[in-house]
């Protein structure tokens, strides 16, 4: 026996009032809402204010941009300008993305830290910005800036940063690790506390 098709009844059937069913008034109300929003925003733009919620990143920045954001890496320096890094490879070892490449060199003149990096490179096309390198470093030689590295490129080989780009830390302004005027402090200087 053929059973006539019966539309399934749902427990939350949509209910429309007669006013909503008439369709046209609600359409007009919708058009009214959008045009009021349009006119309000347009008025703000015309009077020199901002009529949008958009933050025009990177030119503008939201107020709640985190000051401890993990962005581009910074290699700290000794007062004489040499990198604090002793090329121990701990950051490269802990790095989950294996993006850090260090080539160690030997400097017999500096008896306190004879090992130093000739090459210290990070591949930002693969970096996951986890911050483990910063935590692993025994010398406080690598930190992370809140600025992101703006490395827009169509070639992945342009996304490597080396020593020159990362040695941007200025010792005079560092609060976390002050250097008292102690360039003459001798061989003890610069050893991690």
């Amino acid at each position: 026996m053929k059973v006539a098709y019966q539309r399934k009844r749902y427990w939350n059937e949509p209910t429309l009032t007669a006013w909503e069913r008439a369709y046209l008034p609600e359409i007009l109300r919708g058009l009214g809402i959008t045009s009021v929003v349009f006119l309000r925003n347009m008025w703000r733009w015309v009077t020199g204010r901002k009529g949008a919620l958009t933050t025009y990143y990177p030119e503008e920045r939201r107020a709640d941009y985190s000051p401890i954001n993990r962005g581009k890496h910074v290699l700290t320096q000794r007062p004489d300008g040499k990198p604090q890094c002793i090329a121990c490879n701990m950051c490269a070892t802990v790095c989950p993305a294996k993006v850090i490449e260090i080539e160690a060199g030997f400097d017999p003149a500096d008896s306190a830290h004879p090992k130093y990096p000739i090459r210290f490179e990070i591949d930002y096309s693969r970096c996951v910005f986890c911050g483990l390198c910063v935590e692993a470093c025994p010398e406080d030689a690598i930190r992370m800036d809140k600025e992101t590295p703006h490395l827009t490129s169509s070639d992945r080989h342009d996304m490597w940063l080396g020593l020159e780009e990362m040695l941007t830390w200025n010792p005079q302004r560092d609060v976390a690790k002050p250097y008292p005027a102690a360039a003459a402090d001798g061989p003890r200087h610069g050893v991690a506390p």
Partner: protein
Amino acid sequence: MTQDLVVYLVFIVYALGMLITFGTILTWVERKQAAVMSDRIGANRAYVRIPFTQIKLIWWGLFHGIADGLKMMCKENFKPRTYDQVAYAIAPWVVFTPVLLVFAVIPFGGTLDPGRLSPALASWFGGRTYPMQIARLDAGLLVVFAFSGLTIIGTMLAGWSSANKFSLLGGLRAGSQMISYELVMGLTVLGLIMIFGSIDLGAIVRQQSGVVLGFLPAWGIVYQPFGAVLFLTAAIAENKRIPFDLPEAESELIAGFYTEYTSMKMGLFMFAEFIEIAIVGALFTTLFLGGYNLPYMNDAGFTLPGGTTIALGHAAVVVIQLVAFLVKTMLVCSFQILVRWTLPRFRYDQVLMFAWKFMLPLALVNLAVTAVFLWAQQGGAR
């Protein structure tokens, strides 16, 4: 003779330039208006750098249209393995060309008397005057409907010749939807034709320059407010824009009848759609918003309701009429964009139901009421 050629050449260049400018500007207006309506900024990263300097002209993202055009031209020119290459190749042009031709009969300004513009021209033209309209046809409105009917063939050709089931479905939908709404559009205008007693668009606009009830401008929207709403709805539906964009409903049909079109061929479809917005705007302006007429304005200047007259020179009148037409058209285009970014899409059965069970009866009622009213006004059953 030569004078006529020169004047009409100027008209044609003006009209084509205006349409193509509208098509380009509207892509920008659509983006920006949508952005401002939804609290965004909108596309603003494309810029033109002045050579040898670092000065970048952004101009609120106006150059995104150029970027789009360049992108369209640089894209791969994909050809489907279809059995009907000819139909596939000409379909975009069959859509694009009639859209441009419709504008030939729309008056975009009042009467131009070149002799009064500058004394140097006076002797050469010898008192000839030209209504600012490319083709002065008695069958103006019929030509409009005939040409906009041709675009249906283009969309169906595109859907049929793409050898793609989504395209075919889109073409079928486009065909049935556009034919239905073409009918409604014609019926809504009939009331207006009965009132003005002409289908020559120039004559219709000239009759709208007066005043009714002492203060209202004698625009079509005053005589036929209901017809105006129906006409605009049917025109948006015929233009296949949201909420009636079923032929290209991307969630169901990928891109509908132009799924298989790439690069500039697809660009032609998009461009035709944007020009059609401008055409709908121009047509609505001509029929219902008094065309190039400002309220209380005629070819000599303004005549305010109190009886005050402000005389204007011929050049000023021509410029005001041209600008008034452009501004009104732009406002109607803007309203269409507002509708497009406000309303959700219909279901397909709803679209056709809306045409045949809602719009058509209302258009007929509008026509009947107009007819009875006119009959009563002309003396009734004496």
